[in-house]
């Protein structure tokens, strides 16, 4: 079997934090990159600084939190249909 006894970088303490902060840095860089290109907007909102970044973040958080609440109504036991 593969993967037995081998040490993995992701298993080291702190590695996940590094990934997290790398992502944060990337996001910051992309946010600032909004100043670097010429916009060809269809709609006025696209001219806001970092519109796509904010949109992606806000709606993703909204999606997950809304879906979490949906569980209250939709979630049943795994064998719900079996009985």
């Amino acid at each position, binding site marked *: 079997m593969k993967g037995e006894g081998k040490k993995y970088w992701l298993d080291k303490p702190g590695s996940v934090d590094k990934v997290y902060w790398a992502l944060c840095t990337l996001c910051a860089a992309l946010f600032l990159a909004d100043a670097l290109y010429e916009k*060809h907007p*269809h709609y006025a909102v696209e001219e806001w600084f970092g519109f796509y970044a904010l949109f992606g973040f806000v709606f993703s958080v909204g*999606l*997950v939190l809304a879906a979490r609440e949906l569980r209250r109504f939709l979630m049943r036991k795994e064998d719900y249909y079996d009985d």
Partner: protein
Amino acid sequence: MTIEQFSPGLILVIGALFVPLLNGYLRSAYMLLLPLLCGWQMLQLAPGEYETFELFDYTLVMLRVDKLSLVFGYIFTIASFLSVIYALHMKDTVQQVAGMAYAGAAICAVFAGDLISLFVFWELTAITSVFLIWAVRTERAFRTGMRYLVIQVGSGVLLLSGALLIVSETGSITFGHIGIDSLGGKLILVSFGIKAAFPLLHNWLQDAYPEATVTGTVFLSSFTTKLAIYALARGFPGTEMLIWVGATMTAFPIFFAVIENDLRRVLAYSLNNQLGFMVVGIGIGTELALNGAASHAFAHILYKSLLFMSMGAVLFRTGTVNGSELGGLYKSMPWSTGFCIIGAASISGFPLFSGFVTKSMILTAAADEGHWITWTILLFASAGVFHHSGIKIPYFAFFAHDSGKRVKEAPINMLVAMGLTSFLCIFIGVYPDMLYAILPYPVNYVPYTAAHVITMLQLLAFAALAFAVLNRYGFYPPELRSTNLDTDWIYRRLIPRTVSSFVKSLAEARNELRRWRTAALMYLLDRVFHYHGPRGVLARTWAISGAALWVMVLLGGYLLVYYL
């Protein structure tokens, strides 16, 4: 009929019948050869109509070749080839025959030039594909297959009814633009809508696909729904209603996908969401939008197969695809992990991957035509699809907390299939012009502009950041063993329960009637016994004198009546 005019799909349909006659490597080689022959035959086809038959007063066109049918024909052939490679390790003859005939039927359907031929192959895809579910050979799979079959055949019946109405109105069975003005057109739209998994007609997809075999789901994911997309693009382009239908389809399944535990079911929800983009494109109906729908179907078949392949490999090796039981598999299945990430990047539309160059055509078309609400929903759905397909699938299967499962890497044929599919996903992303060249209309769309690349990266990176933040601070809903209610609840729970309680109350009413009848009968018997029983007044032995008295009374009465 010359060989140039032979419908390429028939090579697979007829070829499938001979699969059981061969064994071992010969059978494998034969099964690989069939899609290649089919593809070679397709490349010989020049636009036009061939293979026409006269049936009563109507002309059946088995082979109508134009750019729209070709682009779907090409991708179906590629998908059948890749699916066959993925399934090479599998020795189940039923699945091999069913999968091959199913792919062939779908290819025949996209080349069908009239509604009757379309109906025949439409139903053939239903009948052949159900065996990919039944091949699991459990009671649960049997029931799921039956539900799937009833709905699929029902879609065919609607198609036939609509076709007959159209024939009686117009006198023509040609499958061209249909429109929703006539009743026949409406019936056909619903028929297509069932197979395309329109909202509220969708749930057969999430019900059935995750219950099929490891390799069966890969076949299933490619054909049925995209056949419906083709049919919609042919019959209903520019139907405004479809914009709203499609936008709804892109948005609502992603909520279900976030909380679903079965990762193949998550993919079925995201399949539904991707179909929504195509339906929006068809609804907008401009050249750019229809090109977008066709190219997105092409790209989608590849990355969705790839994702189902990687989850199939996980199921094959670990015996489960529940997110709650997986995690850490990157250690033992590194190649599958890599291929899954390529599929995830493609569906999410990362630059240099296939989704980036196709989905954006539909978004641009929506914005061009001023559908700003639709555009906003599509943008939301783009972020959402990254969330559940781009991050959730690879994260919970291969990373997350280590489940401790240590398995073998996927079989070599699966890896080859995933590798080839990954290559195509990246190839389309890097050289979109090859795909653009085979689209129904000329393309003057440029996907790689600084604005497009940066805005898409921003959208995706911040969606990823949202996931990371929510996960880090414990707001992300954990994977739980559960069933989530969807519209299948109506026919799996509400209707059976209603019917059974109705039957129960009928039975009670019948029992009550029976009690009344018994009681009435008992009363009657009791009275009869009272008068006629051994001691009853009418059963007594009367004395002669008494009888004579009664005779006198009678005769007296008679006289009285006589004189009156």
